[in-house]
């Protein structure tokens, strides 16, 4: 059986469903020596904000049972440096690049997207119609992932992501600014993810991704202080996988646009849980820290499983759900 591993997200066709999650892969270069980046379905960059951010005080990470907390605080070089130093590198890649965007206000987000539209120029798919398997004509930016769900910044971040009206308005204003793939990244720190997912869809998003991290805290009983300088942080890793799968299962039944699933994916079986739950694609985050090749192994495992099940396309996976 010939498997077609491609996945469509709005105007963009990803070469396969497995990407690497924002904040866990830098801007790609860090892992270049360890793997062929071209085999990734997409690279979701570390968040880009209008101004450079030094990030939160140290320590910023601590391990938890089957997980970790981080309070990086969106440390990034800022829009200008991103355009000057990272964009040229991203143009060279033969994989789709989704720029993760964060801000403290609607205007912030809009200015980042507008500036990137200008810097990258009008989008054209990397080699061939909608394909992402070459770099010819690449603009360096194949889409945006709007981070309205970061628990680690004082303003904006999580506050946006828990209010459907704000999510819809923000999405609509960004939609007007770009024809590239527009993905809204949702937080699990809500009573019900459905209204937020619907708001993103109503605002014109091409897809939603979920989940971002859960708010958590570790206290060092020796120092009697939080292990992270900032107090709370975002919980990621296999510990949160069941929460992510439940969110994707609910959200994918509520919206018509693709859902990109992430949270605790360590291997193909984990990714398949997301795809069976209704995700169209997945991202591998914390697992890359544990095994730099986790994303590629996940992809191989998905393809092997599809072969065993006799499936031709990624979309066929979700159709199997509940029909054993």
């Amino acid at each position, binding site marked *: 059986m010939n498997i077609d591993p491609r996945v469509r997200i709005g105007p963009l066709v990803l070469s396969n469903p497995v990407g690497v999650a924002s*904040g866990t892969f830098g801007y790609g270069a*860090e892992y270049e020596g*360890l793997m062929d980046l071209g085999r990734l379905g997409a690279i979701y960059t570390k968040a880009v904000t209008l101004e450079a951010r030094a990030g939160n005080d140290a320590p*910023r*990470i601590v*391990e938890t049972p089957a997980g970790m907390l981080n309070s990086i605080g969106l440390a990034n070089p800022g829009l200008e440096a991103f355009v000057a130093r990272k964009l040229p590198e991203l143009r060279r890649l033969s994989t789709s690049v989704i720029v993760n965007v964060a801000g403290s206000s609607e205007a912030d987000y809009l200015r980042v997207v507008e500036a990137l539209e200008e810097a990258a120029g009008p989008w054209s798919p990397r080699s061939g119609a909608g394909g992402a398997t070459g770099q010819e004509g690449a603009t360096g930016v194949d889409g945006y992932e709007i981070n309205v769900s970061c628990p680690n910044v004082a303003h904006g971040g999580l506050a946006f992501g828990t209010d459907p009206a704000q999510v819809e308005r923000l999405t609509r204003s960004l939609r007007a600014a770009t024809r590239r793939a527009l993905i809204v990244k949702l937080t699990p720190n809500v009573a019900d993810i459905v209204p937020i997912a619907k708001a993103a869809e109503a605002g014109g998003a091409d897809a939603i991704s979920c989940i971002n991290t859960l708010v958590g805290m570790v206290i060092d009983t020796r120092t009697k202080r939080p292990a992270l300088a900032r107090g709370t942080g975002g919980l990621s*890793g296999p510990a949160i996988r069941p929460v992510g799968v439940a969110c994707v299962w609910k959200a994918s039944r509520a919206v018509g646009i693709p859902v990109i699933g992430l949270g605790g994916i360590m291997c193909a079986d984990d990714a398949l849980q997301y795809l069976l739950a209704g995700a169209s694609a997945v991202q591998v985050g914390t697992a890359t*820290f544990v095994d730099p090749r986790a994303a590629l192994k996940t992809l191989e495992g998905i393809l092997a499983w599809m072969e065993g099940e006799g499936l031709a396309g990624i979309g066929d996976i979700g159709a199997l759900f509940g029909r054993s």
Partner: protein
Amino acid sequence: MLQFDAQILGNRELAPGWKELVLRWNGAAGHPHAGEFLTLRVSSALDPLLRRPFAFASFHEDPDGASRAGILYQVRGKATRILADLGTGAFVDVLGPLGRGFPDAAQLEAEGSRPLLVAGGVGLGPILFLAAQLEAARIPASAAGPALIVAGFRNSAAIPRAGFPAGTVTCTDDGSSGYRGTVLDYLSRELPPGNWRLMACGPAPMLAAVATLARARSWEASLCAEQWMACGVGACMGCALPVPGGASFLRACVDGPVFGRDDIDWGKEGGGR
């Protein structure tokens, strides 16, 4: 930097709670310099989850082209307890060499100063590796005098049988072996005058004190910092260390772990071995 499976050649106890792990793998992942490190995944279970960083304490290329590396480690928590139980022949997943190490022999030679190597706690491994590398490059024979190694321990029982070079000054808090007092007591009170060039690795409070002393005496100093790490390759921004003034950060894993005396706000480091 490469990721590969290495086989355990040895995992012997050097003192209570101190062990030496010897790893062997085929092919070259690059010859590490003292201060550089590797990260290990000690088990495929999800708890503990993250890889753990350890500094190279020795490195050899075998005649058959295989690489052999040693680390000295202390059993502290979940991961090091699992590591301590692994037997000869088992495989561990290695990522390395990582980071920037101490200044190399050529640079020290050019400086013409006398190397002062200071170790505390789990900083011992990289300092012994540095001593061996300087020895191999004949740095002790440089104009300003042979390298001096000062290593601190709680007491004589806590000193690992790690093969210290001749002339190493061991300090113990209780005087049960060598100099009675901390490494810092020795440096500030007993050090013969000279054109010293400090290279240190140890717990955060020791590094902070050593950096202060170096500034006061106008010694050049390279200090090996520690910080919690997630990726080890510069991607996660997790291992941030504050630069003086606090407006920005450097990454322990790729900008360090060895930093210059004034690169980092040592007092605020947080981590520390």
